[in-house]
């Protein structure tokens, strides 16, 4: 199956700033995360794919077609920008219906789909209120609603959790993941928060200063490692001292004790030391690599 979006050697230069430098990537079906710090080029890449801006050089394809005339592709694409884009004096019902109609849906279908989609995103009760009165979380949901109201195949969400507290972020990510998995809508989500991408996406593209530094399956970056991690509620220092005395090298990282390549004999020693010192063990498991580790790796 061809990639939904593909970029080949895309460069975008704004006067004296290089926003994207020789970017080559494919966006496949499913959930893809676009990770990068502010200014890494995430929004530029999205707006290039959408045909809102033009690349300085390079080629890109949308649904396997050259991205020159995006009108056809736009019927099957949804987009929610990073910034606020909702008219404050218009109700969500009015606006979502309008956006469905601009996407080409007939009037009655647009109205009923707007109602259904607003219910889906949890804005059932508030849909007749002017959107200027919404909280940040409700605005993010209304933005998602207008992006999916025409039942697109692919949705590009630029920082969909921006401005939300941890609980709000979690809810929003669950809603996005559920929408994607239950209804088969592929999503490209940008975020500067690794946790967001790690929790929801199957694939990841890491952008840094306008270039792709990593891309692949998220599971490939979060496999178990050879490091054993022991988390303690208390008594970590005593265990560390005792293990060092017995010749086992340890590192303390917060509440966790890390032991590289522990053998079966080492595990027996560790068990005995924990019993002897009476330390309160919270968790013992092979350490799972996180996406954060990608950023901790020393530059080649």
């Amino acid at each position, binding site marked *: 199956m061809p990639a939904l979006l593909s970029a080949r050697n895309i460069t975008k230069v*704004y006067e004296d700033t290089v926003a994207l430098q020789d970017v080559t990537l494919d966006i496949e079906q499913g959930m893809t995360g676009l990770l990068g710090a502010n200014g890494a080029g995430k929004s530029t890449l999205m*707006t290039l794919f*959408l*045909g*809102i*801006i*033009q690349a300085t050089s390079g080629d890109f394809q949308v649904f396997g077609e050259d991205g020159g005339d995006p*009108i*056809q592709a*736009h*019927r099957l*694409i*949804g*987009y929610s*920008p990073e*910034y*606020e*884009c*909702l*008219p*404050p*004096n*218009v*109700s969500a*019902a*009015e606006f979502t219906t*309008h*956006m469905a*109609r*601009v*996407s*080409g*849906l*007939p009037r009655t*279908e647009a109205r*009923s*789909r707007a*109602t*259904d*989609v607003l*219910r*889906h995103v949890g804005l059932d009760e508030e849909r007749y209120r*002017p959107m200027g009165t919404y909280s940040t979380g409700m605005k993010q949901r209304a933005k998602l609603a*207008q992006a*999916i109201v*025409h*039942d697109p195949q692919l949705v590009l969400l630029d920082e969909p959790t921006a401005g939300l507290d941890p609980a709000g972020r979690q809810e929003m990510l669950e809603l996005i993941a559920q*929408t994607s998995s*239950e*209804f088969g809508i592929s999503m490209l989500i940008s975020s500067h928060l690794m946790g967001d991408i790690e929790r929801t996406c199957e694939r990841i593209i890491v952008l840094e200063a306008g270039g792709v530094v990593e891309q692949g399956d998220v599971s490939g970056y979060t496999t178990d490692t050879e490091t054993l991690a022991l988390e303690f509620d208390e008594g970590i220092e005593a265990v560390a001292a005792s293990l060092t005395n017995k010749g086992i090298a340890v590192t303390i990282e917060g509440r966790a004790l890390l032991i590289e390549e522990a053998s079966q004999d080492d595990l027996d020693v560790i068990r005995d030391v924990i019993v002897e010192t009476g330390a309160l063990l919270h968790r013992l498991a092979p350490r799972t690599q996180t996406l954060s580790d990608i950023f901790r790796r020393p530059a080649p």
Partner: protein
Amino acid sequence: MNAPVSGQVNGLEQREGEVFDLGYRHYDGPRGGRGKAFMAVYDDGIRSVLGLGRGVAAKMMCGISGLLVLGPAIFIISVAGFMSSFGGETDQIPLPKHEDYYGLTFIILLLFAAIVGPALLSPDKRNSVLPLYAVRPLKSLDYAIARWLAFFTFAMAFTIVPQALLYLSFVLSDDSPWGYIKDNGRDLWAIFAIGLILAAFMTSLALAAASLTSRRAFASAGVIAFVFITAAIGGFGGEILTSDQDRQEHAAGASSSTGNHGDEEVQAPDGDAAHYIHLLILPDTMLAGVSSWTFGDRTHFPVSPWYNAMTIAAVIAGAFGTMVFRYRKFGG
């Protein structure tokens, strides 16, 4: 997806309490292209002017403007009706005619265009809604022209409906309605022509101003300022040129023994510079000038009506062109 609430009660299937959980569903129906998207933006423009789905203030603005532009027509019709019901001759009272009507309502039409017109473009820019249009099957110009047409529809209604009502009342109050239509058939064409020109003029000015700023208030002020500043230039420029010519003619008269200006009012001849600069007084050019073109010689304007028509056409083209240039594409 549906979830019956109570299933079977006493062995009978109960369907009344069935709740349909209509969350997200796939859509397999027709998907229109640019034409449908264009019409959707046009319809939304109409709803925006009417204030539908918006606050009370937006609804009131359109309603009040509509009443104000219809007001004089209703007044004239009422007076004429009142007079004829008492057997009076309506010809004896100087009731405004078609060619006078826009003189009464021009300022209301201008204010309506200045206040409501920019609402069709400026807020979308100010609230960053344009990128959402940019990712739909629509080109930037489709969006701008659909908005222009939406406002133009109201401008046409506001210019033509009162005049049409007036015409109807003249027809009905005449002793021979059919005779009135035969004698004044040209008025219908003139009402439509000047309505079209005036509506295009108002719409283009309002939307050009709105295309230049994301703030509605600035756009409103811009429309009014444009009309008044050009009028001021036209007025003062005309005064200066006329008095220059006046001085020159007096000087010429003093040096010539046959000078006979005497008590005659000094009148610049048709086609001189003062009259051309007077064209900048757009309300005059629009109303008296274009009226003289559409309503024939019943109104008087010193230069050929073609100059008026060309001035108004240049303003409409310039304003429309400004909007088109500003909306040639959505992004950078």
